[in-house]
């Protein structure tokens, strides 16, 4: 076998691109940057992350310190968002709470995504009875109205941050599984999967090296949108008294305990409510932006 001297000189389309990995990322980022909404979303999220990281530095007061003599102070120069019914500074609690609420959200989504992805991949890749069995089980999970499932799980495991996380995460499993299965079916049909199969690759390699990376975009989009929902669900559980344990400054708990003062000291509920809404808003518009950025039609 000799290397032929006369090779047709191929034309490389983009001569300038020397770092494809960078360029891909850059491409993606530039599309994202062009999407104004997504940028707004990203800024909101980054702001929250910043707050979560530096809460101890930013918070003017100890979020846990009870000063009953200070209770129910309206917003003022000392307490920008007022104090709650135990005299704790609401601003400080919200700042610290960002860790919990985002923590719950992110962990729950990761939890849901993890199992959802595995089930979805297996169902989509193997098909047949494995598929129907897994998807029926997912249907069962889905057939429970979400909050009831969470309720059941929390009643079983007891309330608390971790269990709330598991509960709201669990409901995300079938949603991720569905999406992943759908995308897997789509990608599975692509010729490069057949190509790698005909090279003799085993199933694990195909699933995790060739299918998974190529279905990440719908997963990521779903993930950010789910984050929004999950944070709201966690708040809803707090409303039913099944949320985080006191005195955690988890926003949902703050919000739902604030509802007793909705008419007399509305700021107790308004600020955590706003904190949740804006974060959820951030994730929603960021997710939408991501969806656009991942949309192949937007690429060229």
């Amino acid at each position, binding site marked *: 076998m000799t290397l032929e001297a006369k090779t*047709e*000189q191929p034309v490389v389309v983009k001569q300038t691109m020397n770092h494809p990995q960078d360029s891909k990322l850059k491409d993606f980022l530039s599309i994202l940057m062009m999407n104004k909404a997504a940028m707004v979303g990203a800024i909101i999220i980054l702001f929250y992350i910043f707050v979560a990281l530096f809460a101890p530095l930013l918070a003017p007061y100890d979020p846990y310190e009870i000063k009953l003599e200070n209770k129910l102070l309206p917003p003022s120069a000392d307490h920008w968002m007022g104090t709650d019914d135990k005299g704790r500074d609401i601003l400080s609690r919200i700042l610290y709470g960002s860790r919990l609420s985002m923590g719950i959200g992110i962990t729950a989504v990761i939890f849901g995504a993890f199992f959802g992805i595995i089930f979805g991949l297996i169902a989509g890749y193997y098909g047949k009875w494995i598929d129907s069995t897994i998807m029926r089980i997912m249907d069962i999970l889905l057939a429970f109205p979400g909050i009831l499932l969470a309720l059941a799980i929390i009643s079983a495991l007891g309330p608390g941050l971790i269990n709330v996380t598991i509960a709201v995460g669990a409901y995300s499993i079938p949603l991720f599984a569905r999406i992943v299965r759908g995308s897997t079916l789509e990608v599975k049909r692509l010729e490069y999967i057949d190509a790698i199969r005909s090279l003799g690759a085993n199933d694990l390699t195909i699933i995790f090296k060739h299918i998974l990376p190529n279905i990440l975009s719908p997963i990521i989009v779903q993930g950010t949108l789910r984050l929004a929902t999950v944070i709201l669900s966690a708040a809803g559980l707090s409303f039913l008294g099944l949320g985080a344990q006191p005195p955690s400054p988890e926003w949902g708990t703050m919000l739902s305990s604030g509802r007793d003062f909705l008419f007399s000291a509305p700021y107790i509920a308004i600020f955590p409510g706003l904190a949740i809404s804006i974060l959820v808003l951030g994730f929603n518009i960021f997710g939408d932006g991501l969806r656009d950025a991942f949309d192949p039609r937007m690429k*060229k």
Partner: protein
Amino acid sequence: MTEKNKPILEVKGLKTHFYTKRGVSKAVDGIDFSLYKGETLGIVGESGCGKSMTSLSILRLIPSPPGKIAGGQVLFKGKDLVAMSEDEMRKIRGNEISMIFQEPMTSLNPVIPVGEQIAEALRLHQKMGRKAAWEKAVEMLMLVGIPSPEKRAKQEPFQLSGGMRQRVMIAMALACTPEVLIADEPTTALDVTIQAQILELIKDLQNKLGMGVIMITHDLGVVAETCDTVAVMYAGNIIEHASTKKIFANPRHPYTQGLLDSLPKIHEDKEELQTIEGSVPSPYNMPAGCRFASRCPYQQPICHQQQPELIEQNDGVKVRCWMYTDKWADKVVKEEAVK
């Protein structure tokens, strides 16, 4: 074909550009041609050279934004379509100029019975009543050779095969007996035997109705069999335009030559096929000179400096190449090329 002295459709210096975030893509960059009654004009060229955009520009259907007709005229019976109001344009679309699209699978509305899709244009343009329009639609389906058209008219596209759907498209385009029919790759999605049926059908109908047809394709075989004249496009320009016979017998432009040479010939055996090296320039970044220059076996400095014009030769063949001008240094090569 009988060439009446006055063309029914005349495209002059048509430019369609896409204004995207990456820059301006000059998809159609100065196109001129005329179409006469009863004539079939073929437009060929490789993928992405601007064939579809040319046809869409004529009907002002380019996706906008980002596309825009950046210049030129499209004279239909003397009136400039580019300058027309949207209302006037609507009266022409589907009525006097119709179009058959490439993809029969996606070009029909999936949720509306095909009969209705034909009839609605009739009601609109011919002011027909509901019943009359329906009957006419069924008649059109019969005309394009769909068996039991009454039944088929009530069905939705998914219930028809690809060939039938393409016939529906044709029936739809012809329902208002247009004067110009633009067929954008009407058979690429179809099997050869079905393709033969469809091409035969278009030819038949053209003979019956006497309309001018623009046949867009990249299949030179289709062109050879159906067209009177051919315009060869390359990167947004027409680079050669002549009667079909002349082009196949004696291609002038090096690109046309290359294209014909790279076809495997069904009736001759050759071990190796000719190829054209290199690739099409990016529509965002067109070279200053001839757009084919970098791939051209005959390239000369001038080719890279200035774009040649589409010039009509003595025998009526129009070609856009420096070789056929006085500026060409090496006449011998030119002679050879002509041969």
